[in-house]
């Protein structure tokens, strides 16, 4: 890709500008270090005899000197996902990255998927304004040539406070329906690489764990935010946390947000041209039933509540609940000439978790309505998901052993939304159940101060398929010295079963001279094998200086047992009958790559992080089972058995720079770049150009409790698609006010 001259110029200005600022900041830090050392050398008597003026100067110098603590806080935060316990990120045996609430806020991030653009190993594409497709390291759209509907990411597990939130219909995550406001996020931890042994099915390419805020003992919090911008962007949030006493605390919050699309045109899959919404009736029948609001990108309302009770030092009872209502127009279902789909959902959740010494237990219930394709018959469901776990940690001097069991049950019912005169015409035609019982154990052993050995093993049994699955993870960490560490991981993970694969049962009707007759039929395959991934990873972390950390990983993965829809057609009279089922394919996806992150805190007011992932994805033993009418270009591609998979980018990464010259003023700029891709679906091959997304945000605190900010996303206003058949997203400008303490 040719870099635009203005991007190069801007990048150079930023680099030199920040280098100069960092130099000045270092001088100030040296002076503060000196004052702080004086303070530390003073006795209590000395401090009492000092004039207040000098004491204040020294104390404030000490505050700045606590940058040592800041180094640890920013460069080496505490994480909990990789080892199921609190540990410094530097020590994690797995490829782990984390972004905190403060970093999210500083970067002006406007949604949870967008926050993931600040972490290495994440591929984040914006489909329409504020609606995203997210992958860890890719392996997406395998095998290529499928329906978009079938190309959703089913390999990444997303959890909120240990509660899986993926869609059991066909996998994937409905990001607009997560039910947690960005402001309620305490931090997001990402573990890249197979992690089913830790968190169960679907953690094939990794885990995205969203941890939400809690109110500490004896703390009170209040935060309110309102922001507005172009393309109808509006957001209001309010949250409050209050501690009744040192044992009992609560938190309650609500948010409302809305955005319009960047365009009012729809891409037709017939001529691949954008058409204004006013002409939709020339593309599809009754467009108002599918697109009641053509401008809408998303509209969502979220309420959350949580309470914590700590009757004893080692006992915590955590209760939480919430509800969300959302509507979004995003790329999802590519049938009937258009790929843009309106989704709606109204769901609630309740969660109870009890930690008592080494015992950890949790029960969560998630229920409500999901209409995955508004206006399409058969895609609306009432859902009920229950999951529970029980774990116990045994700790010794040199090791840890943590056995556990878990249970999950999901029910999707389309019966209330089906019409009786068309029997079997829904996707599921009933209330099928997917259940999963698992037993697992995770252990750690430290044979010497330098070595740490970690292992995890898990067995999952499902009601469908009847054959269970084993997943494992083995990691070895060798610490050369306090500042450098090498690690190796071997792991295997599998995808879980989904409704569409194991319970889908669809009959299509066609109007003929004899009236309506059955035509298409899709039947599930109870013998389908689950996608499995094996990975080997080597990593090295180094504290180059106390304020400069590096982290690099090399990975190789091999994924098999992908599946696709296989169809047969037969003509009876004037009617073409198509029968389909899903079957495993021979295709193998191999991936080799490297991921790096360099993080620095050059001064107390300046933070920078640079990260990226370069990878190659090779598909082999590929043969197309689909009998779609492919174009010549598509046919050329599918004639090959081994080729590089272009749906996954070869490079993605970025940089994040925060500078706070004064305590009241903060500036951040961050860049995310994703290289070109070629997305091959049944609808065609879409060339997606590489795209640099530069964002900038400046905030000014005009009082200790109030701050205004201006935020520009995609400030270079690069107008292009980031996902197949998606909108050409442009710049988003926001102005906001935050009040809180």
């Amino acid at each position, binding site marked *: 890709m040719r870099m635009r001259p203005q991007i190069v110029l801007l990048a150079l200005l930023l680099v030199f500008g920040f280098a100069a600022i960092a130099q000045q900041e270092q001088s100030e830090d040296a002076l503060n270090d000196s004052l702080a050392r004086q303070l530390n050398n003073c006795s209590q008597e000395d401090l009492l005899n000092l004039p207040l003026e000098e004491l204040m100067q020294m104390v404030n110098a000490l505050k700045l000197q606590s940058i040592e603590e800041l180094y640890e806080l920013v460069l080496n935060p505490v994480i909990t996902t990789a080892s199921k316990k609190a540990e410094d990120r530097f020590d994690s045996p797995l490829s782990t990255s984390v972004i905190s609430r403060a970093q999210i806020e500083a970067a002006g991030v406007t949604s949870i998927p967008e926050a993931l653009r600040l972490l290495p190993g994440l591929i984040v594409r914006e489909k329409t304004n504020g609606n995203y497709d997210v992958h860890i390291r890719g392996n997406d759209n395998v095998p290529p040539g499928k329906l978009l509907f079938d190309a959703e990411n089913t390999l990444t597990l997303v959890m909120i406070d240990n509660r899986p939130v993926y869609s059991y219909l066909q996998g994937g995550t409905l990001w607009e329906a997560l039910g947690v406001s960005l402001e309620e996020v305490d931090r997001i931890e990402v573990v890249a690489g197979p992690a089913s042994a830790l968190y169960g099915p679907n953690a094939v390419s990794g885990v995205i764990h969203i941890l939400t805020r809690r109110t500490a003992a004896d703390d009170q919090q209040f935060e309110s935010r309102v922001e507005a911008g172009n393309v109808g962007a509006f957001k209001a949030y309010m949250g409050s946390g209050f501690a009744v006493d040192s044992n009992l605390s609560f938190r309650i919050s*609500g948010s409302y947000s809305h955005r319009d699309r960047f365009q009012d045109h729809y891409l037709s899959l017939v001529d691949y041209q954008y058409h204004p919404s006013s002409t939709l009736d020339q593309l599809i029948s009754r467009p108002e039933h599918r697109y009641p609001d053509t401008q809408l990108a998303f509209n969502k309302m979220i309420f959350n509540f949580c309470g914590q009770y700590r009757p004893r030092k080692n006992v915590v009872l955590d209760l939480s609940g919430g509800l969300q209502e959302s509507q979004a127009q995003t790329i999802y279902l590519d049938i009937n000439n258009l790929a843009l789909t309106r989704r709606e959902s109204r769901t609630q959740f309740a969660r109870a978790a009890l930690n008592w010494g080494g015992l950890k237990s949790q029960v969560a219930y998630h229920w409500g309505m999901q209409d995955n394709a508004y206006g399409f018959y058969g895609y609306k469901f009432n859902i009920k998901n229950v999951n529970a776990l029980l774990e116990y940690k045994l700790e010794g001097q040199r090791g840890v052993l943590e056995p556990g069991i878990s249970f999950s049950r999901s029910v999707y019912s389309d019966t209330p939304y089906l019409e009786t005169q068309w029997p079997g015409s829904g996707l599921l035609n009933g209330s099928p159940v997917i259940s999963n019982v698992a037993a697992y154990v995770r252990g750690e052993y430290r044979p010497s101060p330098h070595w740490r050995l970690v292992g995890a093993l898990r067995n999952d049994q499902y009601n469908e398929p009847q054959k269970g699955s084993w997943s494992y993870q083995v990691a070895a960490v060798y610490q050369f010295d306090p500042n450098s560490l090498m690690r190796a991981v071997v792991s295997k993970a599998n995808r879980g079963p989904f409704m569409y694969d194991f319970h889908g049962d669809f009959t299509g009707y066609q109007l003929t001279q004899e009236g309506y007759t059955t035509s298409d039929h899709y039947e599930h395959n109870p013998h389908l094998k689950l996608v499995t991934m094996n990975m080997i990873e080597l990593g090295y972390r180094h504290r180059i200086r106390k304020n400069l950390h590096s982290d690099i990983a090399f990975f190789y993965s091999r994924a098999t047992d992908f599946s696709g829809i296989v169809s047969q057609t037969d003509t009876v009279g004037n009617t073409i009958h198509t029968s389909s089922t899903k079957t495993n394919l021979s295709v193998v996806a191999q991936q080799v790559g490297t991921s790096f992150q360099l993080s620095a805190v050059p001064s107390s007011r300046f933070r920078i992080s640079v990260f990226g992932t370069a990878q190659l994805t090779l598909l082999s033993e590929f043969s197309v089972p689909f009998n779609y009418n492919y174009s010549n270009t598509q046919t050329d591609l599918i004639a090959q058995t081994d080729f590089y998979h272009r749906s996954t980018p070869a490079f993605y990464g970025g940089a994040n720079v925060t500078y706070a010259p004064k305590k009241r003023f903060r500036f951040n700029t961050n860049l995310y770049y994703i290289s070109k891709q070629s997305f091959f679906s049944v609808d065609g091959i879409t060339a997606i150009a590489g795209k640099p997304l530069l964002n900038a945000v400046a905030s000014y605190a005009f009082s200790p409790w109030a701050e205004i900010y201006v935020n520009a996303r995609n400030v270079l206003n690069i107008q292009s698609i980031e996902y197949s058949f998606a909108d050409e997203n442009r710049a988003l400008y926001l102005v906001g006010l935050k009040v809180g303490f």
Partner: protein
Amino acid sequence: MLIRRAGFFLAGFVLLLVAQRSQAQYAHYKALYIYHFCQRVDWPVEAKTGDFVITVLGKSPISEELRKIARIKKVVDQPIVVHEIQTLSALQPSHIVLVAAAHGHDMEALQQALHGQSVLLITDHKKGWGSGINFVEDDYELQFEIDPARIQRAGLKVSRSLISLGILIQQP
């Protein structure tokens, strides 16, 4: 849509709580600041005999730091005595009342209880809530807000040097 947004804000403002935030790690220095405040505030003659009483309302790590100071220092000739109380009913005559971070909701009752008394009221909260001196702490500085008019209304005299060191709160 407008009704929905308005409803959201209305619901939100009902949630508005007044809050405080504990800053335990700088309790040592806050206690030192308080000792220095005593040097730059003048109490009426009748309060210059007996013990110099500092009452801490609520749990605060500053209490222990003040006790350490009390063991080696006096305010002029008055020995320093530190009381920590949990409820307002336990309040005794004091020279200084320090309100701990979690007790902000007691402020109105406390101000009524101290009405007409020569007491320097100190709070440890991002919003002062009607105290004479309030600690303000952020990532960069430990400062204090000072309201000279309120301190003088309590019958105390505050030095210009102390006023100049604080963030001045001027009442309308």
